[in-house]
């Protein structure tokens, strides 16, 4: 497993450095920055900082700018992580290297772990840049509980990895990336509390948020960064996050195996 991990990591690192150094990178950073910029303009210039009375209760904080900057940043982290891991196999299929990969006795766990960790490198740089820009626009970091924030973020990234396995197998099954990924991302942005608390949504839409790891990850991350709360304060969100990750991970591992078999059958049909 570690050999495959190292090899995949190295290969993807070289691809990132040599083939696509900027395009995805800039695109991801810019779309997060646009989300933050939109919130900044709306808050300061349209509404002059006047919030609705229930916002602070729903959001757990009255600091709208910090709320949105963190929302936009973790959302872009989720999108990047989901894209990097879930598109791995279908990219191999498109480039013609999937057959070779499936025929070798290499470890699939090592492959995905290598892809995920290498992706994390790129995502980490994006994350830092967006936080820095958000900080210029008014993100308040004075109360941050650094250790808790780090732990929460790591668990959240793990849950995106598990969700990506499921998404990846759906993509491979339907041989489509464009519609599948964009539909998920648009729905995720609506129901996960990225730019507004889920409680504002109509009652029938709210249960959808319980399927999104992003929703729980964001709640816990925000309270550790804005309020400086510890792990214990977010125990409910963290438990939901871990349970969701385990469910996605189980389904993901099973689905990847099933779709791989189907793809092999189709190839040699």
């Amino acid at each position, binding site marked *: 497993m570690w050999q495959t991990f190292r090899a995949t990591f190295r290969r993807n690192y070289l691809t990132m450095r040599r083939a696509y150094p900027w395009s995805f990178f800039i695109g991801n950073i810019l*779309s997060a920055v646009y989300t933050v910029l*939109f919130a900044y303009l709306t808050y300061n210039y*349209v509404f002059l900082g*006047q*919030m609705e009375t229930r916002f602070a209760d729903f959001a757990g904080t009255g600091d709208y700018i910090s709320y949105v900057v963190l929302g936009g940043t973790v959302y872009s982290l989720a999108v990047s992580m989901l894209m990097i891991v879930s598109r791995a196999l279908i990219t191999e299929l498109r480039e013609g290297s999937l057959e070779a990969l499936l025929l070798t006795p290499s470890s699939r766990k090592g492959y995905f772990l290598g892809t995920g960790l290498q992706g994390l490198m790129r995502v980490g740089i994006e994350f830092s840049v967006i936080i820095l820009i958000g900080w210029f626009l008014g993100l308040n970091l004075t109360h941050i509980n650094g250790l808790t924030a780090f732990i929460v973020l790591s668990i959240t990234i793990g849950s995106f990895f598990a969700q990506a396995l499921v998404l990846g197998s759906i993509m491979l099954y339907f041989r*489509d990336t464009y519609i599948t990924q*964009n539909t998920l991302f648009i729905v995720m942005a*609506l129901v996960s509390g990225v730019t*507004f608390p889920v409680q504002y949504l109509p009652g029938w839409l709210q249960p959808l948020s319980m399927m999104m790891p992003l929703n729980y990850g964001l709640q816990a991350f925000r309270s550790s960064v804005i309020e400086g709360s510890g792990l214990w304060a977010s125990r409910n969100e963290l438990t939901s996050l871990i349970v969701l990750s385990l469910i996605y991970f189980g389904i993901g591992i099973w689905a990847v195996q099933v779709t791989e078999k189907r793809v092999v059958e189709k190839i040699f049909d």
Partner: protein
Amino acid sequence: MKELIQVLGAEMKKSHRLNFHSSLIYFSLLVWPAITYVSAYYSFKPFDLGEYSPLNRFLSAENIGLFLLTGYLGYIFFWSLVQSAWQMSFERYAGTIELIFLSPVSRLGVIYGRAAADLLAGVWLFSTFAFLAAVLVGGVQIAGWWSVPLGLLVLAVSAVIWGGFLNVIFLFSRDSGFLYTILDEPMLIFSGVRIPVAALPCWGKLIALVFPLTYVLAILRDLVIEGYGFTQILPSLGVLLAVLAVLFLFSSRLVILAEKHALKTGNLNLF
């Protein structure tokens, strides 16, 4: 003229066959724009939308649903052409662009034909949604039956001219994906789709002036939210026509330049 109609028909047929080969197209035609609109609507909910809302300086807070709906309708018209132009660059990869340039067909005919065809295909479904939603949201005020068709006509003509300009850029540029990132979302933020242009700071208003969508949305909202008559919108219509004329002249000049460049160097990359 006959040739132009022929080109338009051919481009329409080609584009339809290319895009509608699978029913998944309905996601990008209706589901995505509709969910994005709903998302935009709810992202205003955390703000004070009551009687003393600062939003009332620019528009009545009750009209926020209709404001966003007209904004998104305009945006979808323009966005479908950014998508169309992006697909235009596939002609380069597929190697068909040389064939088009070898044929005696009018260059501008192809460029505007493609834009018009993709516009029709891309917006009919969301426009229907917008009409139904406008009835539900309420607040529409019009001076006469002609207001809505006139608004749509202004929108469609401006979108085609904007689309033609983008097609030219995407056709002759080597790495056009980058343009997609810098044109798409800034248009959403600065041209008055989600935030009233009057609310923007000075530098934001300057950026807004660059996008034709800004002028189109102002006219559309005057027609269906403020209930302006024809004479009242004439000054803004004049400004819009001037902007479109400049854009059209610039695009056609660019096509001539690019083709001259290609004839001389054998290279279609102008920039």
